[in-house]
């Protein structure tokens, strides 16, 4: 491997009641690359994303980020890690409805202890970058779906994370808006050098990745990207 592996999942197992969500899943993510996680619904791709991001803990197996074992960390340590190193974009309903778009984008910075003024300045520049500066002072409910999703992308990137986890980021959008979001998202991620783990069932969204991994029955079939 020429590039350094940043995030690794090794042989993860996790069951919810009767169903095996993860059944020996493994995955490697290199710094700066975009990996699409594809597979039928219920295959465990979202669960894998949650485990990779340290939101959930697998029952067995290891998740290693930058040499650190996430599965051995406490909840607090993982929260701290997520605040500093990770960003998230979800399908919908992820922006805090009471806060303005600017405040939503500034939120991760403020959670990391950045001052209000500073956080807002950075948030504004990110909103401009994603071409949604005009909704900065509106609430998410007053922005369109596509704008809201771009605000969410801005929020995911505002801390300059090393990995952004995106779970069906365009799932609630039409193709044109979805495309716009993806174009800006991936471009911005590449610029900042963030790796992206992208869960999607849409091939055209997956086409923004460097390579894809297919999740089926809780296992991953990883396809190496051959350029």
């Amino acid at each position: 491997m020429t590039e350094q592996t940043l995030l690794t999942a090794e042989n993860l197992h996790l069951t919810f009641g009767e169903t095996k969500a993860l059944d020996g899943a493994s995955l490697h993510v290199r710094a700066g690359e975009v990996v699409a996680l594809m597979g039928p619904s219920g295959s465990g791709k979202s669960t894998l994303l949650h485990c990779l991001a340290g939101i959930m803990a697998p029952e067995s197996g290891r998740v290693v980020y930058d040499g650190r074992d996430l599965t051995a960390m406490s909840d607090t340590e993982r929260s701290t890690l997520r605040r500093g190193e990770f960003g998230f974009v979800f399908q919908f309903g992820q922006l805090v409805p009471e806060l303005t778009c600017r405040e939503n984008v500034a939120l991760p910075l403020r959670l990391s202890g950045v001052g209000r003024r500073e956080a807002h300045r950075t948030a504004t520049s990110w909103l401009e970058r994603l071409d949604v500066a005009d909704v900065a002072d509106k609430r998410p409910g007053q922005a369109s779906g596509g704008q809201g999703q771009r605000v969410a992308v801005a929020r995911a990137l505002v801390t300059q994370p090393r990995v952004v986890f995106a779970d069906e980021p365009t799932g609630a959008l039409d193709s044109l808006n979805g495309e716009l979001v993806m174009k800006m998202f991936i471009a911005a991620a590449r610029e900042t050098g963030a790796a992206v783990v992208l869960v999607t069932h849409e091939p055209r969204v997956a086409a923004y990745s460097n390579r894809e991994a297919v999740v089926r029955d809780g296992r991953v079939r990883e396809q190496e990207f051959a350029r």
Partner: protein
Amino acid sequence: MTAVKRWVFELALGARMSLAGGRAGWTRLALIAAGVGIGVAVLLSVATLPTALAASSSRTEARTEQISADDPPKSDETILVGLASSQFGDVAIHGRSLQPEGSRPPMPPGVTTLPGPGEMLVSPALADLMRENPLLAQRWDARVVGTIGAQGLSGPADLAFYLGSDTLTEESAFRVDAFGATGVPDEGPDPISLLFPAVGMVVLLLPVMVFMASAVRFGGEARDRRLAALRLVGADAAMTRRIAAGETLTGALLGLFAGALLAVGIGLLTSRYATGKLSFYLSDLRPVPALAVLVIVAVPATAVLVTLSAMRKIVVEPLGVVRLSGTVRRRLWWRLILPILGIGLLAPLASGIDVESGGAAEIQVAGGVAALLIGLALLLPWLVDAVVNRLGGGGVSWELAVRRLQLDSGTAVRAVSGIAVSVAGVIAIHGLVSGIENQVKAADNGGSGWTGFQIAPQNDLPEQTWTAALRDTPGVQEVLTIRSHAAEGDGTLLSIKVGDCTALARYADMTGCTDGEVYGVDAPAAAGTYTLRDGPTWTAPAVTRQVRATTNSPGYGQPMLLITPAALNGTPIPGTTDEFAVTLVSGGGADAVEQVRNTTARLDPQAFLLEPGNSAFAAAMRDIREGLLAGTVALLLLIGASMLVNVAEQLRERRKVLAVLVAFGIRRRTLAGSVLWQAALPVLLGMALAIGFGSGLAAVLMSAVNAPVSIDWIGIGTTSGAAVLVVLGTTAAALPTLGRLTRPGNLRDE
């Protein structure tokens, strides 16, 4: 007909939905029923009070002696009645000495056979008390031969006795030929007793109404979601409203039932445990029919109306609920009308209540207080809006809470307005009561700091008997004899006290007193001639020094002549009666007091015992005060419960956002902080407004009864403390829900 049928069907559907709503539905139903039930119980109890009070006071009147200006002539049908009332601890004991003058004496109600000399009849409550307290059992030199029947007692807890006697004279007793006061003119309504019922009712009932109104909205958001599901299968807007009304109605009817049960329970407890004026027989506890019907009809009707008016602010669409309230700008001007009206009504009272006006003043006070308190409830939403919209900055948890309140403060404010109204009312009454209490206490403790007793015997036992008996009483330190007389000269009544400097010190500041001097309190300085009570004239020595009376002295407020023995040069004033001043060993405690009362009652049941201060009155005030505070704390707890329901509901509605925030690495602490702020901000504002209004109201009421205006820190402290506890408790109780909702699994179900 079909329309009626449809209505019934839809109301019934609502009722069924509320019953079949699963755990959340049951919780909602239980909360509504509890809220309405408590309200109904209070309302029914209040509706019972007039009949109960009337029954009790009619019995009290029936045992009161018919006293006329000229005593009826002594006959076969007369009886001599001596006042033998006593006190145990702070509790007053109604007592009479009875001495029939013929074969057919009138008998007080509840008495079938008059006690003979050395015998006594006691009320059941007094019998119990005497059994429990041997000290009290020794008080009267008589054997208990029976009990007084219920028709001769104000209530089951009434402490009363009749003492048989053969030593009563026309001097020490009065002669009656019948019991039962008919139209005894009161001393006139005293402003304090005028204020309490009026203000009390308003303060008590308003928060209950506010609480009931917010109770029927409990769990409304879950209900709205259910209604939205109904819209999806084809119910129209009017139908959903009726179904919602049916749901609320179920809760309200359950609450009515629970409230009735609760009221019966309160009645049972009252008849068993209540003391003093609130002691009633079970048969007294019949609600005024009209009021009871009003409660039964008005409560469910109001519940339905509140639901419908709340539903007007939302549109239930098939795919969800749209709230219209979010963008409504709250206007100030009309919210000021009621408070201003209230101030207008109350302001003239600040200079004192015009007692002569009778009912009008009462209505004015009640109206003013009601207007002020309702005005407070109306002002609060505006205030919260205005304040919250100006807030900004701060940490993340603060920002989340403030923004949430900016978007929708209605829910939070509704719960808090109940707190605000009751707290303002309580602070007002509490302030007024403690003001009066302090006034009474200050009178007790002012001046010389005297804490002794003064005994004025009504019989002719020699002085030696009294002083010896009192000196032998455990806990007594010193007994001084004061010779006392009433004199009249130039149309002024003059009280004459003869005693040594220590004895006289209880009437006035006697610093530097020497034997041989004559002290005047508002008395003519020159030597003058006076007519004594029994007829002879007497020339008083000239006053050598003017002194100021101590405020709590017996006979305070009238001119007095304080004479040291040497000033009389050995010529005593004719016909002097002796009074005995008793000083207790400091730290003698309650037993010493009871011992003095015992000695006095055994020597002469009719003797007047002047006790330091008005402890019974002060105790009554304290009871009112403490009862009020306890009630408020209970109310606050209930409101806390309703706030908790709101918070939990809100959190559940936002589980997705919460899960995303957790993904971003938000600390639980930050989320908990935002819940805390969200509860604390409206409560804080409500409390501030309530304390302001309450203190102002208290000030007006205090000056209305001529009590010194002061700020009631105890009331403010207690209610604020309780409010803080409610906020903290709400937050703490919401934490498990928060924990559950921020578990990672919640990102899953989309």
